């Protein structure tokens, strides 16, 4: 079999300066207004508000059971909110059944109709609109071309591979030109390599069509690759909304910092805070310098959050005065090929992780098990979290 090379394309032109959420005059396509949904005694979604703008690729990210799928099903109309309103282009969706909503959903199980061929599956939604037959045929052909499934029109779903089925589901959901396409864990059933390919195809497709995509995923990497903006959810609430870069570099809490990527959290007490610099007294007795004001009173319990790739590891103590530096012993080294991961036990007992990009071919390791090392980072590399 010939491996198809997957060119990694950058975001297409129009998406470069795309940021309707930053424009106070823009009105959202979808608005959740203090929406709550309970199942029996369990609150699945708790008084949550969220705006999604036209043309956005929006990700709802969270662990299983955090309410992200319920939120999507509320928008599709499969569930009705107990409280609050859901607006689409300013109009309340309350009481509108799923079959009247201008949204379409791509199901996690794909939910292809097993007794209908690929083309009949894609045509199903168009037939419900009573679209004339020649127009349906043209649209089906267009959709098959869009997902690169020409020649599969007459096949039944059980004679397709997992990846092909996924694309039929995508074509079927897009055929009606929905105002918003809802994707429920669309890649959960694909293997890792196919998933990576599909992710980039999805980005391209979304940029080309300009349709608003709302995706539900528990995979933070997937959310970051795909989304213009993402909402991190925890137990029915949204804990932070922002672009992937904002979420990664400026997480609002330890939960977000920990859920999105790896993070070192160093507990300490705030000793001083100013406009451009704050000081935190770490548990190990070392003063940590952070280039950021902190919204807390001196003496408050805070956490210094530091991404492993921003930590330098060396055998010598860094000479730069402003640099934060902690001493420790290497307890574990992981070689991942592109990266090396060092786990270091600090002298105060805390465990820290540092990752190093292997820029040159690894011939001999300079730092190994049980070496005494210095971990260091500039004040700009870390941030302080108060919750």
């Amino acid at each position: 079999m010939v491996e198809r090379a997957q060119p990694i394309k950058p975001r297409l032109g129009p998406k470069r300066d795309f940021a309707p959420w930053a424009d106070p005059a823009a009105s959202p396509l979808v608005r959740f207004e203090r929406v709550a949904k309970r199942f029996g005694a369990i609150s699945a979604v708790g008084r949550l508000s969220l705006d999604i703008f036209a043309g956005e690729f929006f990700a709802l990210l969270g662990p299983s059971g955090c309410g992200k799928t319920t939120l999507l099903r509320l928008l599709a109309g499969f569930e009705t909110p107990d409280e609050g309103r859901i607006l689409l282009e300013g109009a309340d969706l309350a009481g509108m059944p799923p079959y009247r909503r201008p949204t379409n959903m791509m199901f996690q199980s794909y939910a292809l109709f097993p007794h209908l061929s690929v083309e009949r599956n894609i045509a199903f939604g168009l037939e419900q609109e009573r679209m004339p037959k020649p127009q349906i045929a043209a649209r089906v052909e267009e959709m098959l071309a869009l997902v690169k499934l020409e020649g599969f029109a007459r096949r039944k779903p059980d004679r397709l591979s997992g990846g092909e089925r996924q694309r039929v589901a995508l074509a079927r959901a897009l055929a009606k030109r929905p105002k918003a396409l809802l994707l429920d864990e669309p890649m959960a059933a694909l293997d890792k390599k196919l998933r990576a390919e599909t992710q980039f195809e999805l980005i391209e497709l979304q940029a080309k069509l300009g349709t608003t995509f709302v995706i539900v995923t528990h995979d933070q990497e997937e959310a970051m690759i795909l989304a213009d903006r993402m909402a991190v959810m925890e137990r029915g609430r949204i804990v932070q909304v922002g672009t992937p870069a904002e979420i990664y570099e400026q997480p609002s809490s330890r939960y977000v910092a920990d859920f999105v990527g790896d993070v070192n959290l160093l507990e300490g007490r705030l000793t001083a805070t100013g406009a451009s610099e704050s000081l935190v007294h770490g548990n190990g007795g070392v003063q940590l310098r952070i280039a950021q004001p902190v919204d807390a009173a001196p003496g408050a319990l805070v956490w210094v959050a530091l991404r492993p790739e921003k930590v330098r590891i060396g055998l010598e103590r860094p000479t730069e005065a402003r640099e934060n530096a902690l001493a420790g012993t290497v307890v574990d080294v992981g070689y991942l090929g592109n990266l090396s991961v060092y786990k270091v036990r600090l002298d105060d007992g805390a465990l820290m992780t540092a990752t190093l990009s292997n820029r040159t071919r690894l011939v001999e390791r300079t730092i190994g098990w049980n070496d005494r090392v210095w971990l260091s980072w500039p004040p700009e590399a870390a941030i302080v979290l108060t919750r």
Partner: protein
Amino acid sequence: MRRVFPPACSILPTLRRFLAGLSFDNYAALGSDRLYLAAYLKSLEVAAFSTLMLLALGYPFAYAMARAPRRLQAMLVMLVVLPFWTSFLIRVYAWINILQRDGLFNQMLLALGIVEEPVGWLSTNTAVYIGIVYSYFPFMVLPLYAALEKIEVSLHEAAADLGAPPWKAFWRITVPLSRPGIVAGSLLCFIPIVGEFVIPDLLGGSATLMIGQTLWTEFFANRDWPIASAVAVVLLCLLIVPILIYQHRQAREIEQGG
């Protein structure tokens, strides 16, 4: 020990004598007497109508079962199968009791004011239909339930999401996907009902002379075994037809799919 076989020379004449005794006279007799034709047609008619009635009653029942909460489903299946714990014959006798002039059914109709005076239900076509529909209900419901229960809920949701109101989703998704259950249930009911003997004999009258009763009369009352076997063979041939049609359709479907 050696087994003793008759020598070949004695088998051949025996066989020849046996073959010489065979004839189609009894089949011809079936055609000459209108009674047999009427009995065959009545059987097919009763079987066809009761299968349709079973389908009309069984489908909503099976659908409700498949849509019921999981823990309830096992209990509902139990309830459908429960009558099998009693003898079939006893259950049909029970219907005689229910349908007789001062039986439960008439009492209920009187109490509800639907009839002025008791109706003679026994020895009518209605009684036969009631008995058949009651007795064959599980054979229709269980295959239907098995087919309906396999249909994923997400398919209904997908149909709704693509703009199909509930009745349309039912017609375009649920019905075609439950077709194996419809065919299996219908055959499972139709075939034995054609040859049904006990129910028309006990609940029906002279108006419902089905082929099963004819067969019984020839075998045990008239003791005319040759004509009785002719009746049975023709019945068998009649029943093979729907089975062959079904198998042919299935084979074609597999060919198309595969």
